[in-house]
């Protein structure tokens, strides 16, 4: 039995050697070009099938690539959208901060008393003798709250607060403010020399619908065109807010009073932001 097995092993090894030699000889013959024709026949026969299979592979590869790219683009898109939302939010915040900074700079640049308290408001509409504001920061002004502009126009205001008007009523988010030219407006004032600041006269600025008039100035008191008209502090208004300057002076010889046109310092409708004086 052992001999039989030995013979079997030997014959297996023999067959192995035969086919090994055959493989080697085939390879040698191929290197001499013995099977050129055979290659051509097999290639031509199998080409259609191989091409079809290759196209299937290309299709699968392309689909995979498209899907991968689609997933990647979607992911990138989502990331970008998140980033845009975040940047938009930051931009809005930045814009808001810039505006607040601008407003605060205006206040800081004036000679308004630092103990006063101010609340910002945005101008919505200016019509005739009224302006409409929207209070920023949720502040709800009381009726009669004065409204000022903080301006650094030194030539005209000498770095002072300029009186815009006073609150007449609140309408939801909007605040209606009457200008000095409004017929309901009556403001106690002083007249000061524009250059020296010396007090020259006192009177009342009354609204005449479309214009304001300085009235009840004693005829003995001096008035000159260009003099500054400032609030006197009477009637719940803080003092030294500029209303305008003296324009044309009217005097009737028989009257104990003289009057003058009030020329506005600034045009409120060209403004963006004003301030309520919430405490003075």
């Amino acid at each position, binding site marked *: 039995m052992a001999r039989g097995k030995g013979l*079997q092993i030997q*014959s*297996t090894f023999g*067959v*192995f050697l*035969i*086919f*090994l030699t*055959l*493989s*080697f*000889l*085939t*390879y*040698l*013959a*191929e*290197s001499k070009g013995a*099977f050129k024709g*055979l*290659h051509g026949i*097999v*290639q031509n026969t*199998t080409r259609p*099938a*191989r*091409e079809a*299979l*290759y196209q*299937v*592979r290309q299709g699968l590869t392309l689909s995979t690539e498209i899907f991968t790219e689609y997933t990647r683009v979607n992911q990138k898109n989502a990331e970008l959208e998140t980033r845009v939302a975040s940047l938009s939010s930051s931009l809005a915040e930045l814009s808001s901060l810039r505006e607040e900074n601008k407003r605060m700079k205006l206040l800081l640049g004036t000679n308004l008393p630092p103990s006063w308290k101010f609340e910002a408001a945005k101008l919505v509409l200016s019509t005739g003798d009224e302006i409409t504001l929207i209070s920023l920061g949720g502040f709800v002004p009381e009726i009669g709250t004065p409204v000022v502009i903080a301006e650094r126009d030194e030539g005209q205001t000498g770095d002072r607060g300029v009186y815009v008007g006073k609150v007449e009523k609140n309408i939801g988010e909007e605040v209606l403010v009457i200008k000095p030219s409004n017929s309901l407006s009556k403001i106690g004032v002083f007249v000061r020399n524009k250059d020296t600041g010396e007090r020259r006269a006192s009177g009342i600025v009354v609204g005449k619908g479309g214009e304001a008039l300085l009235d009840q100035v004693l005829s003995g008191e001096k008035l000159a065109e260009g003099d500054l008209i400032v609030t006197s502090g009477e009637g719940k208004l803080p003092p030294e807010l500029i209303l305008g300057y003296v324009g044309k002076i009217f005097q009737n010889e028989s009257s104990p009073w003289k009057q003058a046109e009030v020329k506005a310092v600034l045009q409120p409708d060209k403004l963006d932001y004003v301030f309520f004086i919430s405490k003075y």
Partner: protein
Amino acid sequence: MSTRLFLVLTLAFALLQGSLLPTVFAEGLLIVLLVFSRGLKRSLPFIFLVGIVFDLFQSRAIGGSSLVFVMLAGASWYLRSYITPEKGLFLTGAVLAINLARNYFVFNSISVLPSIIIALISLGIFNILQPIVSSRRGYEVQ
């Protein structure tokens, strides 16, 4: 594995490999299945033929693959008595060796990923077939 099935699978994979499947993929598995189911002596003619078929279909020098297949099939057959690891692993190693050798000597490259894939498939197949192979008369892997 019957020789008819072996030849059909050979022709199918020779056509698929290169166009749809990786260039070197299933030949190692086919050869190992044939050798260890029918024995080396009865498998050698078909192993030689497999090499010729793959070389023709893949436009390689005829005889190169046959040389690699015959040598490694013989080596794994004779080594089966000396190496006694877990049988599935040994056969998988033989499949891997045939594929890598063909990759290197015929195509002058090494494809790692397809080799790993076919090794895993082989391991799965051998572990499933091992009880069946062991019960066949005369050609048990020792």
